[in-house]
């Protein structure tokens, strides 16, 4: 091959063959005359074909490229050298190629064209980076030539000042862009100095752009002198606003950190590895009841309570090993006061080594004491809750058990219900006796009403227990029901005294009745005698003869006897009510019945009374003997007295047990009593109620009092014309 070109040096050929560029040489007919290794590779990878010498280059050019190739080729044939850059873009690798067309002359004739394709991607990229860097750092240039008296600004400079590229530049107008005042004076002074002394400058000044924005700029200036005279001033012009902002941010953040340290509400301090203070903020001094200067350089040790030194030191050691740690401990101030603090130790690490300890301390004395107080008051409340005499069950609105105390549990267990458990539901009937169930309670509670009832629990061992149960609704701010408090109060003692009170009330009532009866006796019985005596005395005074006088004296005697009898009866009544500590003992009823029939013997014989005694011979009652005697006598004499005139009187004596109580029955077949009419008078103090003028109305009244005094009672059943039955209930 070399022969065709004559003396082609082997070295040149080798260079051609091994060039990193792709090289073709085409004849005028666009046939490939020569190609190098890279050309072969390039064509193969580009068109998938192996190149053959003498082939038309069209075989290897993509149809798109044909047109531009032809233009460049023909231009080259006419003698032009063409060099063009092609950017072949693909998403992975953005490639730049430089394609140059070179005419090859032989004997002043163009005989061939060489085409060299070089990969200029790297160069191109570097170029672009430079551009970008220049844009980013926005460094512009400027120059003032004092020989030619010209000024020039680079486009970037103009861009910085936000001037159009074609802006005509004058030296002095440039200075006008500097911010009026200090900045402008500074640059003017710097230029004057530079012109006089040849000294350069480097200034950070504020500039107002053509659009009125204020920016930070750095203006560097250098001088060029000729024969001791400055002939040229040149330099760079840079927008440093961002940098400046960063710097200012930095300054601000430094201040931030400083104030964060100084103004920190917590005590903040740093200790060196010997636990000496190397920095202390005001709050730390305040906490220590000392001053910053007094603390700096001194040891932390005196501030640590003796009993906590070990723990605090251990934590310091941990921090010295790089560990952050937070804990509560005591703190002794310079004045010797103890405080409770929460301290956080942080290691200060420089170049990977812990050089000091940073500590943030919070005074928690108050919160500790508040916490203690709260815990104490909570404990107090719990103690109250647990030890109060009242049982409590806290329930949700849906009767889920939130909490309860021992008394509540005891109450539930005493009812025979399954024990209360937290988070379980209180189910079923709350009180079986009154069938107050949860639904009813809930309904009321939902309406904000309390539900209150009393509950009596009969127990086998102890006495009956009485409880007062209250369901309180617990309302929130919007009156919504938040829950229910069930209150269980044992009111047994109260209830018992209430029952006792009722008993004594009844007793008092009875006694009052007796008193009324007594006043009745006074007003009727005694008064009737005295009024009669008064009348008789009047007649005596006015008596016209001895006969009349004697008659009146006889009447007076009778009245006197009646009065005596009435007073005796009254005495009986009074003595019953006065017999405070009356003796009572078991008494055989039979004994007392025969005593009474003995007394009434005459009448029994006269009226042919049959006494039908159905009582057992050993029937006995616990009673006072005198009272029993009076009772038997009264009832039997009444039965005889009010016997029916048409039939033989029969008095039946019997007994039965009613609810553990012994009941004596005295029944007669006498005239009977109209109870509807006279029932209320029966045991009252009336003279008579049967039309029998000799009847002793006082008798039943006394009997009733005696029986009641012994804790019993008397009942009566009667039918007019058929007979009367008295029932005496013994205690």
């Amino acid at each position: 091959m070399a022969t065709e070109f004559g003396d082609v040096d082997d070295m040149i050929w080798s260079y051609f063959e091994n060039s990193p560029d792709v090289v073709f040489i085409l004849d005028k007919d666009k046939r490939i005359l020569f190609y190098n290794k890279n050309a072969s590779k390039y064509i193969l990878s580009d068109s998938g074909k192996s190149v053959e010498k003498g082939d038309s280059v069209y075989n290897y050019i993509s149809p798109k490229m044909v047109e531009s190739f032809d233009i460049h080729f023909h231009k080259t044939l006419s003698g032009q050298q063409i060099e063009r850059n092609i950017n072949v873009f693909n998403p992975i690798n953005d490639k730049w190629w430089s394609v140059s067309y070179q005419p090859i002359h032989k004997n002043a004739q163009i005989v061939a064209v060489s085409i060299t394709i070089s990969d200029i991607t790297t160069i191109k990229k570097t170029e672009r980076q430079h551009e970008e860097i220049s844009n980013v750092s926005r460094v512009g240039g400027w120059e003032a030539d004092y020989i030619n008296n010209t000024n020039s600004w680079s486009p970037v400079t103009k861009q910085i000042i936000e001037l159009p590229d074609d802006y005509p530049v004058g030296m002095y107008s440039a200075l006008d862009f500097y911010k009026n005042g200090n900045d402008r004076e500074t640059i003017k002074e710097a230029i004057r100095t530079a012109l006089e002394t040849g000294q350069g400058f480097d200034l950070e000044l504020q500039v107002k752009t053509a659009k009125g924005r204020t920016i930070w700029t750095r203006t560097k200036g250098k001088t060029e002198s000729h024969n001791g005279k400055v002939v040229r001033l040149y330099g760079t012009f840079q927008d440093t606003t961002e940098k400046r902002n960063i710097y200012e941010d930095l300054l601000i953040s430094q201040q931030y950190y400083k104030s964060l340290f100084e103004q920190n509400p917590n005590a903040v301090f740093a200790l060196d590895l010997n636990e000496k203070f190397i920095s202390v903020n005001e709050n730390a001094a305040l906490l220590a009841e000392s001053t910053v200067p007094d603390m700096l350089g001194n040891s932390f040790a005196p501030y640590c309570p003796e009993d906590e030194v070990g723990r605090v030191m251990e934590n310091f050691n941990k921090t010295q090993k790089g560990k952050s740690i937070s804990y509560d401990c005591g703190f002794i101030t310079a004045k010797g006061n103890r405080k409770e603090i929460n301290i956080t130790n942080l290691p200060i690490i420089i170049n990977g080594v812990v050089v000091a300890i940073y500590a943030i301390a919070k005074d928690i004395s108050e919160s500790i004491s508040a916490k203690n107080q709260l815990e104490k008051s909570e404990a107090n409340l719990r103690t109250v809750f647990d030890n109060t005499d009242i049982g409590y069950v806290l329930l949700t609105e849906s009767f889920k058990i939130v909490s309860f105390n021992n008394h509540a549990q005891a109450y539930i267990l005493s009812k025979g219900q399954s024990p209360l458990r937290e988070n379980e539901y209180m189910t079923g009937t709350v009180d079986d006796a009154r069938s107050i169930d949860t639904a009813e309670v809930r309904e009321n509670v939902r309406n904000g009403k309390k539900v209150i009832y009393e509950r009596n629990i009969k127990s086998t061992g102890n006495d009956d227990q009485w409880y007062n149960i209250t369901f309180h609704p617990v309302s929130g701010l919007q009156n919504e029901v938040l829950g229910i408090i069930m209150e269980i109060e044992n009111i047994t003692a109260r209830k018992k005294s209430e029952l006792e009170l009722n008993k004594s009330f009844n007793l008092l009532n009875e006694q009052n009745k007796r008193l009324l009866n007594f006043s009745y006796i006074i007003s009727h019985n005694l008064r009737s005698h005295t009024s009669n005596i008064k009348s008789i005395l009047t007649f005596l005074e006015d008596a016209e003869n001895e006969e009349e006088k004697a008659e009146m004296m006889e009447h007076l005697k009778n009245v006197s006897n009646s009065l005596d009898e009435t007073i005796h009866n009254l005495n009986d009544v009074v003595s019953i009510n006065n017999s405070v500590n009356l003796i009572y003992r078991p008494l055989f009823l039979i004994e007392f019945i025969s005593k009474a029939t003995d007394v009434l013997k005459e009448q029994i014989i006269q009226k042919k009374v049959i006494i039908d005694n159905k009582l057992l011979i050993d029937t006995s009652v616990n009673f006072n003997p005198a009272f029993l005697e009076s009772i038997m006598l009264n009832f039997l004499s009444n039965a005889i007295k009010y016997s029916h005139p048409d039939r033989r009187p029969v008095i039946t004596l019997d007994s039965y047990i009613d609810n553990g109580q012994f009941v004596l029955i005295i029944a007669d077949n006498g005239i009977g009593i109209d109870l509807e009419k006279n029932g209320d008078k029966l045991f009252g103090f009336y003279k008579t109620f049967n039309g029998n003028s000799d009847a002793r109305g006082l008798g039943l009244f006394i009997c009733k009092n005696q029986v009641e005094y012994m804790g019993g009672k008397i009942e009566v059943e009667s039918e007019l014309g058929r007979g009367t039955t008295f029932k005496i209930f013994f205690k």
Partner: protein
Amino acid sequence: MSTKLKNIWVIDDDKLYTFLLTKTLAKLQACDNISVYENGKLGIDALKQQIAQKGDLPELIFLDINMSVMDGWEFIEEYKKLADGNNLGSIIYVASSSISTDDMAKAKSHKEIHDYIVKPISAATIMSILEKTARTN
């Protein structure tokens, strides 16, 4: 002016009292006839009989409160029924040994009862009652 009445009834079960009252009325020559009834029932029966026979009704009745079978209050109720709103013409005085204010108040509540007098009834009291009764008649 004559104060003598025709018929005075005493309804009382205290025999001594009725004896003494009858004696006093006789002494005062208060009336032509004095009738004594031992309880309210006998009094009412007698009234009924007088009405039935168109006989003389008493101008004046001394009525006791506490009596068996029918007491003074029950007598008043029966008397009201008997009169059926009409005035039978009898002036009724309740004469009781009771000094209980309850009894006095109760007596006042019945318009049929002219007044309440506490036993014993003195001759002077009887005189003034007779005068009043005579005037009314």
